[in-house]
């Protein structure tokens, strides 16, 4: 195909570097383009408009737009740098050409690459005084004013260079210079201001409460492939702006007529963009069809490029002054009161060869004889739709402006302004003026005064377009919108099955009418019935056209009475990976580690996630599986001595004269009477009466307690204390400080633990008489480290907890390991800890309880005060909660002495037939904890069972791996029920 690339004499080619050629392949065929091209513009320049066929109907389609509005030309793009994944689906009009690019056309369905995406993505969070979205003339004028005032100003634009619509123009002049040069210069000047940031290739995709705007910047895809360590490919900007100015422009609407989807039918503004920005002539025999004056600039440009159109088909009854002047100057034939009603094409690609033209009667019905015009390109303009997305996402009002034939912003968003084409201002001079005013106003609102702005700007916000007097400044002239263009051979729009409304979804006027015929009146229903406007082009070319045709069909006065569907973020598609940002792999979420972590890792620990913490689960020796390792660890703790890193337990220091009183309300038990120097176990309930945390609290001094919480509950409990204190009982003298991480804590457990402690704490009298159960002591360890040692036990064994300053944790652990070596001291993990406590019938909150368990249910009525009004107490006397036959914590023993019941296994009565196919099988409860026990020599468990305490001794059954296992219900305390081991 011959090149349609024009020389400098015929096109300014603002966006391309004619001296820098890139090679690329499309569907395996080699092509070339210029630096600055998109894949689409390179193909237009190559004279090849067809792209992949349509999604469902397989119709030939071509490039129709020049930007994010493109519905047809969708690409799969191979990785642009090593280690990247392929692009699933991108509009060819947005893919910047780089040398060596490989791409293929898609048929509406994307293709996900299984290769892991090694590209980097990141996020940034910034604050600004003024944010301007869109670097077209209005946006540049606004940003330049704001930046000059000293206000922190950001200017975002999706294109590689500033200028917006100016990049598509030709011969436009601003301040006596070429408009594109003006745009560059103005932005460059602003960039000399310290507080100005211009972000090209950055699309504002979402606008949220309090001027929080999310934008996506493409950082490297336009660069040659290269290793760029640490450099993100795309960056998501989170911008909090005091003032926002939206200058997002407008999109052109196509016309809907029979066979309106052929390759060669293109938006007029796109034709102009390819011509002036990319120096690419999209066709040679060009017909222009319009409802407004915007196309007359294209006519001029085409004429100047030496390619004047064959004709312009204009729906309006007669030439406007602008149209008349251009037609006269260019000699192009104008056909007024007329419309393109159909198209012809040929070849496999179906490229346009001709269009048919009819006159219109007063009711927009095509009449009279047909005229056929040969054409390889039809440039269409059905009007313009302001890009109101970001405004609308903030619930900013929009209204139909019948003069502009467009939905425009009608009600402002607080601290936001809309300017330029987005506000329905087609006129360049007015866009520049209103843009500059908006910039000044925004800066002033932030306390900055622009130089040369002698008086504060007046503060008109978004104007009411319907109340806006004479519209002499409208560059696009009057519009004769056409929503239903008759087909030559079918009177009934319900049969117009080649009038495509949504190209990407292959939906036509006939489809939309079918929805109406089915009873649908709401545009939301029609959208859902047809799927119009739901594709990745977000209905940019179809949404308003659908509203227009519905308004016509339903006899609504104008499209505003039908209304639009809701505009939803994102404005343009955003890759999942960009939104994930750096939250992948080890940065996905913090892994909290203790001071002793490295020792655990070095000693082969297998870790368990507990909340965000990494806790050793067990320490397998060579050849050991988990079961063997855990049995060994448990045996060590019961037979000699074991030690565990329990630094993750939550710890809260509480001080104040009312601490006891507060704790009496927070815990179900009484803590105000706890002796100084002692600790006590406590349960916390929600107001609903259910257990939500537990732990031992020490009384360090009269007015000072140290509370411990579960590992997962630490933050919640601190918040809980603060909430009750701050919001309910501020009169209490208490203060809380989290000291979870101030301390490293090591549990030393087992009959030999006293000897180990005596070796590491030589100054301490560790005898049972001097240092009883639930007591604690301050001392200095043998290595000089100060420590607090407590006698608490979560295993029934003689046990100590050694607390030292966090950063001495590892040294202390190693000291204990050394001191315990003669006793073969054994590190153990959470799994062994769980076994040891379960043997003693001690619960793990969150495992044996599930938010529906009261202290009484758990058999812990002993921990519940009968006098204090603790939180949750009232709930315990509700009818259902007070029942005596609720689920109770019991022990379970598989009768065969061998079967390990799965945790979570259900229990049913011994006589209950297991016939779920005949209806629900009544369940008695479930196994909450289950382990093999070295001490018991058999598997055992804990369970929550209806009326369990009154069933002890009963044998029930549990379905395990397809068979039924007899299970004896027992006391939850399986081991040493007399508590003989606690004191060694």
């Amino acid at each position, binding site marked *: 195909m011959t090149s349609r690339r024009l020389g400098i004499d015929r096109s300014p080619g603002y966006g391309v570097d004619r001296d820098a050629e890139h090679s690329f392949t499309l569907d395996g065929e080699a092509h070339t383009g210029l630096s600055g091209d998109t894949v689409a513009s390179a193909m237009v320049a190559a004279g090849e408009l067809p792209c992949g066929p349509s999604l469902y109907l397989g119709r030939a389609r071509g490039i129709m737009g020049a930007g994010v509005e493109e519905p047809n030309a969708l690409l799969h793009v191979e990785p642009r740098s090593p280690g990247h994944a392929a692009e699933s689906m991108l509009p060819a009009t947005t893919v910047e050409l780089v040398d060596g690019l490989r791409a293929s056309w898609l048929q509406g369905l994307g293709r996900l690459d299984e290769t892991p995406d090694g590209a980097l993505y*990141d*996020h*940034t*969070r*910034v*604050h600004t005084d003024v944010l301007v979205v869109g670097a077209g003339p209005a946006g540049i004028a606004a940003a330049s004013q704001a930046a000059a005032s000293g206000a*922190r100003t950001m200017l975002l634009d999706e294109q590689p260079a500033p200028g917006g619509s100016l990049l598509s123009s030709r011969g436009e002049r601003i301040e006596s210079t070429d408009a594109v040069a003006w745009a560059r210069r103005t932005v460059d000047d602003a960039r000399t201001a310290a507080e100005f940031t211009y972000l*090209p290739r950055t699309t504002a995709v979402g606008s949220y409460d309090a001027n929080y705007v999310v934008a996506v910047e493409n*950082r*490297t895809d336009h660069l040659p492939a290269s290793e*760029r*360590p*640490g*450099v*993100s490919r795309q960056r998501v900007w989170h911008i909090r702006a005091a003032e926002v100015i939206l200058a997002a422009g407008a999109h052109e609407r196509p016309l809907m007529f029979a066979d309106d989807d052929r390759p060669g039918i293109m938006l007029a503004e796109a034709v102009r963009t390819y011509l002036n920005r990319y120096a690419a002539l999209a066709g040679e025999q060009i017909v222009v069809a319009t409802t407004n004056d915007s196309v007359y600039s294209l006519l001029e440009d085409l004429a100047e490029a030496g390619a004047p159109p064959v004709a312009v088909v204009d729906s309006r009854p007669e030439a406007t002054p602008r149209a008349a002047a251009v037609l006269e100057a260019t000699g192009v034939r104008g056909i007024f009161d007329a419309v393109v009603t159909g198209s012809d094409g040929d070849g496999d690609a179906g490229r346009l060869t001709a269009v048919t033209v009819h006159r219109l009667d007063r009711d927009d019905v095509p009449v009279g004889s047909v005229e056929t015009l040969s054409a390889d390109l039809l440039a269409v303009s059905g009007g313009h739709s302001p890009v109101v997305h970001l405004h609308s996402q903030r619930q900013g009002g929009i209204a139909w402006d019948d003069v502009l034939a467009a939905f425009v912003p009608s009600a402002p968003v607080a601290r936001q302004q809309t300017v330029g084409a987005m506000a329905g201002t087609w006129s360049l001079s007015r866009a520049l003026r209103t843009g500059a005013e908006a910039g000044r106003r925004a800066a002033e609102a932030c306390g900055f005064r622009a130089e040369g702005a002698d008086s504060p700007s007046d503060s008109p916000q978004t104007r009411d377009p319907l109340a806006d007097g004479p519209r002499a400044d409208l560059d696009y002239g009057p519009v004769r919108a056409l929503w239903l263009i008759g087909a030559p051979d079918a009177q009934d729009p319900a049969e117009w099955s080649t009038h495509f409304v949504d190209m990407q979804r292959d939906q036509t006027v006939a489809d939309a009418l079918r929805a109406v015929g089915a009873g649908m009146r709401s545009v939301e229903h029609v959208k859902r019935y047809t799927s119009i406007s739901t594709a990745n082009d977000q209905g940019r070319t179809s949404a308003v056209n659908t509203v227009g045709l519905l308004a016509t069909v339903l006899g609504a006065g104008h499209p505003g009475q039908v209304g639009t569907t809701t505009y939803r973020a994102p404005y343009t598609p955003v890759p999942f990976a960009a939104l994930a940002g*750096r*939250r992948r792999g*080890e*940065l996905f979420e*913090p*892994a909290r*580690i*203790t*001071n002793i*972590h*490295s020792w655990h890792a070095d000693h082969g620990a297998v870790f368990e996630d507990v909340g965000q*913490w990494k806790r050793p689960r067990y320490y397998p020796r060579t050849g050991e599986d988990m079961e063997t390792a855990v049995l060994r660890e448990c045996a060590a703790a019961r037979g000699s001595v074991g030690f565990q890193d329990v630094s*993750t337990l939550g710890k809260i220091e509480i*001080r*104040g004269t009312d601490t006891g009183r507060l704790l009496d309300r927070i815990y179900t038990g009484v803590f105000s009477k706890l002796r*100084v*120097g002692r600790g006590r176990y406590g349960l916390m309930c929600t107001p609903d009466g259910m257990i939500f945390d537990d732990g031992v609290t020490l009384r*360090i*001094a009269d007015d*000072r307690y140290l509370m411990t919480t579960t590992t997962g509950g630490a933050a919640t409990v601190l918040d809980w204390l603060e909430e009750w204190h701050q919001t309910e009982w501020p009169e209490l003298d208490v*203060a*809380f*400080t*989290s*000291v*979870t*991480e*101030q*301390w490293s804590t090591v549990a030393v457990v087992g009959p030999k633990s006293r000897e180990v402690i005596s070796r590491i704490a030589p100054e301490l009298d560790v005898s049972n008489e001097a240092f009883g159960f639930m007591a*604690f*002591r*301050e001392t*200095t360890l043998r*290595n*000089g*480290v*100060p420590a*607090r040692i407590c006698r608490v036990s979560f295993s029934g064994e003689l046990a100590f907890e050694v607390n*030292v*300053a*966090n*950063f*001495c944790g590892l*040294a*202390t652990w190693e000291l204990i390991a050394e001191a315990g070596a003669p006793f073969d001291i054994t590190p153990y993990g959470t799994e062994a800890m769980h076994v040891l406590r379960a043997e003693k019938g001690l619960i793990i909150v969150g495992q044996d309880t599930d938010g529906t368990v009261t202290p009484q249910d758990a058999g812990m009525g002993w921990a519940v005060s009968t006098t204090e009004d603790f939180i949750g107490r009232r709930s315990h006397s509700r009818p259902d909660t007070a029942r005596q036959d609720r689920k109770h914590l019991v022990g379970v023993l598989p009768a065969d002495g061998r079967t390990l019941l799965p945790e979570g296994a259900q229990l049913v009565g011994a006589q209950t037939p297991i016939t779920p196919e005949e209806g629900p099988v009544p369940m008695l409860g479930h196994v909450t904890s289950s382990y093999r026990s070295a001490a018991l020599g058999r598997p055992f468990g804990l369970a929550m069972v209806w009326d369990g305490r009154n069933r002890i001794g009963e044998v029930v059954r549990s379905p395990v791996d397809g068979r039924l296992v007899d299970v004896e219900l027992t006391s939850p305390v399986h081991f040493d029920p007399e508590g003989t081991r606690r004191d060694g």
Partner: protein
Amino acid sequence: MTADQTTADQASAPPADLRRSPAAHLTEQMRAGDVDGPRGVRLREIPFAVQLGIRAEPGAPSGRAAAEAWGVGLPAGPRAGETVTGDPEGRHVIWISPDEFLAVEPSGLAGLIDVRGIEGALDGMPGQIVDLSGNRTILELTGPSARSVLEKGCHVDLHPRAFPAGAAASTLLGPVQAIVHRTREDVFRILPRASFADYTVRWLLDGMAEFAGEELIR
């Protein structure tokens, strides 16, 4: 002897060679991640700073007593434009809430500070002074690109107009709660809790990596 009387020496210094700071295992990576030059940024840990948590209201006797014991007044708070008092290289106090402060001495002179004595300053008064020297560590991010690195996840506005040298805030850095303290124009201290230090260092190093290469021209 009651526990009250034995309330510990735990805050006095343990033997130095037995201490291991929360980010010590990443020292090499931090060194390797340093970037010099006009886009430079460096990360190091300031280990073992003395840190005391103070719960007291500045205007109340307990607040005055705490300030006197520490030797630095309590900051009045963000509303008054004062979030740090004292010398960031010596004793200073960071505002956390109207009745919560973090007293810091970064030089690691733990042995020279009578932590126990300071803790006792509130005897007979409400409030709380707690040794928190192990609770958080201090990471110091320095250089012209330090702010950009932090902006990859910090929720407060780090522009000098909003957050000048001498300002501090409790906030989120990525998913991590941390105190951010700007001691000089391009020096930020980040105080995550000890267990988050490993993640925070990795997060910062990852954010610093791009500055070692050439700047992307926009």
